Structures are given as structure tokens and as C-alpha cells.
């Protein structure tokens, strides 16, 4: 509880600091809306010509898309600091974090707040609500319970994968982690139904880099869509695995940390 409170306060302090720059805030909110808008435009264009893609209707795809955007916003809110990890390592700035009685990983995560988090959370939340409204979902208690498990699990997967991707900085040692950026781009592929990709790519996105468990699989099981819908039930397990992976990779990396200077 104490750990969470400190985490929240650290984020809050950075949030207050970032909000000082009002222009930045609005530019990034608009940027998030425009970026995600472009993706939605693509979906709208495709569905203007074909009614379904691999059995997926427009609002079902929007639901997957919305989950991905919401997850991105969550990661930008809770773990944006990890994108600065390469620089922190490179400049020896983890030193000061190692001197405080608080987990280093959480200090890194809460050392920044992503401004576009607010844009993405708003857009993602909006897409989720409107897709669900159009999809005629029967909200039985079971469905509600399922959603209550799937949603946080999916968001946790995204945050954990961001941590894993950036923890590679301990090995790569450059000032900017381009590898993590590349992985993140790869994850963007799962904004669309997984079945449109080649089998190899599907396998990678479902296992080694389980980005498909952020949007595609949870939505599949929630809507009972397709033969592989049951795979979505694994989402909480995948989330637990990803959290474990994030903590392990980060602490392994931390052991390699050699500060800077002499």
C-alpha cells in the first residue's frame, strides 16, 4: 500500500510539473487524436468497400483498436519513465535511484508522465464505449465479470511489455533504445485482427511477444468470436507471465549496471 501511494505521489508531482507547459499539453492531446484518427480512417476506408475482414465486422475491429489505444495511454501514464531508461543508464543517473529505499523499477516508471496519455486514454475509452454500444452485447453477470478480469490484465500486459522492451537498454547501452521503439511498432500490428497476418507473425505476436493479448484475444473471447476465442481466457495468465518477465529482466539488467565515471 505504501509502495502504491509513493508511486501515485511521484506520478502526481510529475504530472503537476508537466501541466505547467500548457501548450505542450494541448499539442500532444491533439496529436494523439490525429494519430489514432488516421488509424480509424484506415478502418473506415476498408469497411466502406468490404463488409467483413476474416469474419470481423467494423465495430468489432474498432473494439480491438480501442483496447490498444487505451493500453497505450495506460502505459504512457504509468510507465512512460521506462522510455528514458536508456538515457538514465547511459548517463549513470540510476545511481540516485539506487540510493533510495524504494524499488528502482518503480522509480524509473514514475520518473515521467507521457503527455499524450490523456489524448490516448480519452480516444481509447471513447472507442471502447461506442464499439460496445453498437455491438449489442448482452451484459450478463458473467460477461461483466469477464470484462472486469480481461481489461486490467490486457492493460498490465502492455505496461509490462514496455518495461521488458526498454530493459534491454541494460545490455544495449546506447543513449536511446531504438530496439524498444521497434518492438513497440511491431505491437501496433495487433490493432487489427490477427488472422490477417501470416501464420509465423501470428505465432510471434501470440507467444514470444504477446501483443495480441492486449486487444485481439481478450476481444475474441469477450465477443465469443472465432474458433480460437477460448485462447482469450489465458489473458490473466499471460499478464502474470509478462509482469514476472518485466520484473526479472529489469532486475537482471540492474545487476549489469555499472554507473558512469569513476
Amino acid at each position, binding site marked *: 500500500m505504501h509502495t502504491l501511494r509513493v508511486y501515485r505521489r511521484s506520478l502526481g508531482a*510529475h504530472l503537476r510539473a508537466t501541466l505547467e507547459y500548457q501548450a505542450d499539453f494541448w499539442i500532444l492531446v491533439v496529436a494523439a487524436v490525429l494519430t489514432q484518427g488516421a488509424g480509424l480512417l484506415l478502418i473506415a476506408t476498408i469497411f466502406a468497400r468490404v463488409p467483413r475482414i476474416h469474419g470481423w465486422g467494423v465495430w468489432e475491429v474498432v473494439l480491438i483498436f480501442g483496447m490498444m489505444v487505451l493500453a497505450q495511454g495506460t502505459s504512457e501514464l504509468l510507465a512512460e519513465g521506462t522510455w528514458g531508461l536508456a538515457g538514465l543508464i547511459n548517463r549513470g543517473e540510476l545511481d540516485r535511484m539506487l540510493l*533510495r*529505499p*524504494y524499488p528502482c523499477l518503480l522509480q524509473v516508471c514514475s520518473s515521467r508522465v507521457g503527455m499524450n496519455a490523456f489524448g490516448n486514454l480519452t480516444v481509447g475509452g471513447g472507442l471502447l464505449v461506442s464499439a460496445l454500444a453498437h455491438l449489442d452485447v448482452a451484459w450478463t453477470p458473467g460477461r461483466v465479470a469477464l470484462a472486469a478480469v480481461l481489461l486490467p490484465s490486457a492493460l498490465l500486459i502492455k505496461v509490462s511489455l514496455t518495461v521488458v522492451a526498454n530493459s534491454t537498454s541494460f545490455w544495449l547501452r546506447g543513449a536511446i533504445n531504438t530496439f524498444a521503439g521497434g518492438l513497440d511498432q511491431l505491437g501496433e500490428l495487433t490493432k487489427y485482427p490477427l488472422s490477417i497476418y501470416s501464420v509465423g507473425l501470428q505465432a510471434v505476436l501470440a507467444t514470444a511477444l504477446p501483443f495480441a493479448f492486449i486487444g485481439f484475444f481478450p476481444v475474441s473471447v469477450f465477443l465469443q468470436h472465432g474458433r480460437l476465442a477460448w485462447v482469450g481466457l489465458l489473458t490473466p495468465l499471460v499478464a502474470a507471465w509478462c509482469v514476472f518477465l518485466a520484473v526479472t529482466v529489469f532486475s537482471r539488467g540492474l545487476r549489469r549496471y*555499472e*554507473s558512469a565515471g569513476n
Partner: protein
Amino acid sequence: MASTSALVEATGLVKEFRRPRKAPGLAGALKHLVTRRFDVHRAVAGIDLRIDEGESVAYVGPNGAGKSTTVKLLTGILVPTAGEVRVAGVVPHRDRVANARNVGVVFGQRTQLWWDLPVHETFELLRDMYRIPAADYRRSMDRLCEVLEIGPLLPVLARKLSLGQRMRADLAAALLHEPRIVYLDEPTIGLDVSVKDRVRAFLRQLVDDGTTVLLTTHDVGDIEEVCRRIVVVDEGRIRHDGPVGVLRDTLASNSTVRFQLAAPAPLHLIRERLPDAEVTTGASERDLVVRFDRTLRPAGAVAATVMGLVEVRDLRIDDEGVADLIRRLHDRDSPAALNGAG
């Protein structure tokens, strides 16, 4: 240094860094990708150090001697390649959280404040992380605000502070949780004279109040005004360990007399009369500098000898202090200077 409880105990401490060995240029970088070669650099090569509760230790040596690496090993930032460390019974790199409560660290070259936050936010976050009770926090803050005069800095963003202001805020941040031992890595680097004096006075007060201090510095003023014990390190090894005063008396036995003469100095004549002294001219031929061992002859005898040979207009006597000593220590070509201290 009686056998009270050892607060810091390091035995056989070694830290090696692997440095990639690359030929220069792009070709070299590409070659390194295929055939990876590393040089092993021993920054700390077997250090034994014991610091008792309440001691104030200066840890000095030339750049690259392994001072900061030692501090990073003692604070748990780095994991030693070999050897053991214990600080207040805790192995720092193994139990960083428990260690953090016992120690405070100030790096002169790098701030520990949150760069983008107002100073008071840093203090409040530290209060939460260290779980400092509200009453203790208020008492601590009141005291630090008073002696370091940081009150007016509290609403300012850390990155907008001047170096002197930043150092005072950094000191406060490191001491907020009232640590038993404080490591200071070049705390007065780059500060102007008046801020330096304030920082030193504060550190002296800290030592008088019973806090254990380990101070890394190149500044003699820091050593003489704050520390009672001096440890000299070079090439990763401890070369000298003893009280500051004794070091000054035994090693710094050289004196220099500077003369201003009415006529050009008759160097050969003076050298003949003072065979064991070093006789040179200064900026002009009329400036004479005589350096000698004051245990062999008093300054008065040197002055009298010169006055007997040439008309002297003015003279000044300089005793070598710890400053010259450190300069000699830093001159790696003459390690003999150290052996006398043994």
C-alpha cells in the same frame, strides 16, 4: 579510533570494469561487433577500510584513483568484483533498501533532486519514500532550512537553481532522514568561496553532532576544516591512512622563502652556501625562491645566509601545507613522496 563499533567495514574490496577494445573509426567498431575484445580495468584493487561511528574521513587521491568507485561500492550502487562490504551491519548492494535508510549521499557533480520538480516536491517524495514521520520531518526541515537557508528555494524548479543553491538543496535532501553516515563526493566542486565556507561550516557542525562523514575531495580546505583522518588512494589502492595533523607534520616539512632582491641573484654563490636547498629564480632575475627542509635548518638561517650575500628588499616564508602534499601525491612520477608517511 579506539575499537568502538565499526560503521563501515570493507575487506579486500575489488572492482573491475570491462572496457571494449575497439580500433578507431567505423571499421574498428564493425570489427568489434564480430570479434569482441575487452580490456579489464581495475578501478579498485583491494581496499581494506574501517570507519568507526563518529569519524570524519577525507578520501583523497588523483583523478581516476578509484575514489568515486569506492564510494559507489560502499553505497551499494556498484556490486564488487571481489571482497566484502558492510555498512551498519548491512551489505549495501544486497539490501539496498535497508542500506538507504542508514546512509546519505551527495554527489557534487550530479544532483539527486528530481530535475523537473520544485525543490519542495523532492523533499516530500523523499519523506514518503523514507517513511519519515510528520513530526520528525518538520523538525528536520526546520533545522535544515535554518542552517542551509533553503527556505526561499523550496518553490523553485531544481533545474533553475544556481550551483550553490543546488548544492545546499542536495545536502538537505541527503540529510532529511538523519542518516548515520554521509558520503560526500566532491561536495564543494565549482562553488565560490563564500558558499564553500558555508558548506564546510555545515559539514563541521554535522561531524560535531556525531554523524560519520566520508568526504572525497581535491580541496585542501575541505580536508583541513572538516576531517580528522585522511586516507590517500592511488591506482585503486590505499597508500596512506592516518590523522590529518600527523600527515601535515611528517610529510610537509618543506618550507619556501621568497626573496625580492635589489640586484640579480648570484645563484651559484647561494647554492654553494645552501647545498641541500633548491635555489631558483622566480618571474625575474631579482626574484629568488629557496626551498628547503625546515627540519634541517630554520628559515631564519636561510634568510641570514642570503642577506649576507645580496641586498634583500622583501621576503616571504611559505610552509608547505596539505595542499602541496596532495599536489605531490597527484604527481604519480614521484611515489617516493609517499613512502615517508608509510
